[in-house]
């Protein structure tokens, strides 16, 4: 390999290392069971930048494939603490009839999901029961 190319490759590699050293700051929650649901349900939450994501999974017994009934995406409103649920274009696990928008409040590493309005519903019974009252959890830096 010519010396010039070696230098180039080295610089490139160092550049990548340098870039790789600083990634997004991510806060997450290790999988937990929603207390209002059957034990096969688990959820996690991830906060990265302006997006708070909550994923609800169902661990089915036997050969039945496990499911993900809902992936909730809350997007930060402006620069403040409030995050707003974005509609799920996949249609799976949707929040039905959700106006006004569901909100979450994030203060440092603590996230609280505000409860449903009366009359709102979801396509999943666990999600429905879980979101009927305010849910708070502490996120840890990854």
């Amino acid at each position, binding site marked *: 390999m010519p010396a010039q190319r070696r*230098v*180039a490759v080295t*610089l*490139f590699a160092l*550049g*990548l290392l340098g*870039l790789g050293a*600083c*990634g*997004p*700051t*991510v806060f*997450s929650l*290790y*999988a937990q069971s929603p207390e209002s649901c059957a034990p096969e349900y*688990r*959820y*996690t939450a*991830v906060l*990265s*930048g*302006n*997006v708070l*994501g909550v*994923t609800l*999974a*169902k*661990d*089915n017994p036997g050969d039945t*494939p*496990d*499911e*993900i009934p809902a*992936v909730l*995406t809350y*997007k*930060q409103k402006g620069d403040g603490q409030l995050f707003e649920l*974005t*509609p*799920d*274009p*996949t*249609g*799976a696990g949707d929040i039905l009839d959700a106006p006004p928008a569901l909100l979450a409040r994030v203060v440092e590493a603590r996230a609280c999901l505000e409860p449903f309005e009366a009359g709102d519903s979801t396509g999943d019974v666990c999600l429905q029961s879980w979101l009927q009252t305010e849910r708070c959890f502490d996120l840890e830096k990854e």
Partner: protein
Amino acid sequence: MRTIVAVHGITAGGNAANTGYAKVESKAIQKHLAALGTFDVPVTEALWADEAQRFLSANFLADAQAMVLNAIGGKVLGAVGKVLSWFGVPTLAQVADMVADVFIYDGITRKNRIKNVVLAQILAAREQAGRGVILHGNSLGSVIGLDIISDLIEGGQMGADVPRKDWPIRGFLSTGSPLALDLPFVSGYVDRANRLSRLLPKTLSSFPWLNLYDLNDPIASGNLLGIASDPSLLAQLRGYRKLRLTDLSPDSGFHIRSHTEYWGHPTVAQHLVALARLKD
């Protein structure tokens, strides 16, 4: 869970130099699903860099280099050094090699050949999985994705008259997409986004398309080389959602890092999981 087919954007070098991003994406997805259950979300790459390399000519390189230098001359970027730092490569020739892919893909003959190479890999993944795949196109890869989905609809392989279980592609995620770029020297990305928009509302109102971008991403924002103007028809799409990310760049200014870090980003992984669980 459905298979994800990831299509890369502009590159320097051939396939061998560009493989690996599916592994990064797969790792991010596994991390997202950790301890939630047993999920298999295969991620496969649709590589096309070899095809582009075969067509890489002095003319394309010269055009690409002229375009970069023109941008620098217009004081858009400031300096050559900054361009190199943005692209993470040491020479302007390598930047030109990457930018040349734009011209190569838009070459009339080559566009079809690159599309065919990518489509063949999509169909192979669909065949192996037995279900329609989720397509993730990054940067120029998202434009290739737009074109392929539009072609499939026009060709009668997807659409209201085709059962959803038979669609080769069940959902689309674009990241760092230049679909808002409207530049005189590349064939209109806006037009191509609008082409798909025209096809989708009539035929595939349930086809989800998520577009993730960072405002500091100079390609997705459209502010590097042109003026961003959202394709007018996108707002009509029921299944289209765009979501701005804010934490891809290490600083608050434009940085190519904002364009290259989507693969391993947790929010991208989260949305791929959302798409991969789609039922027929």
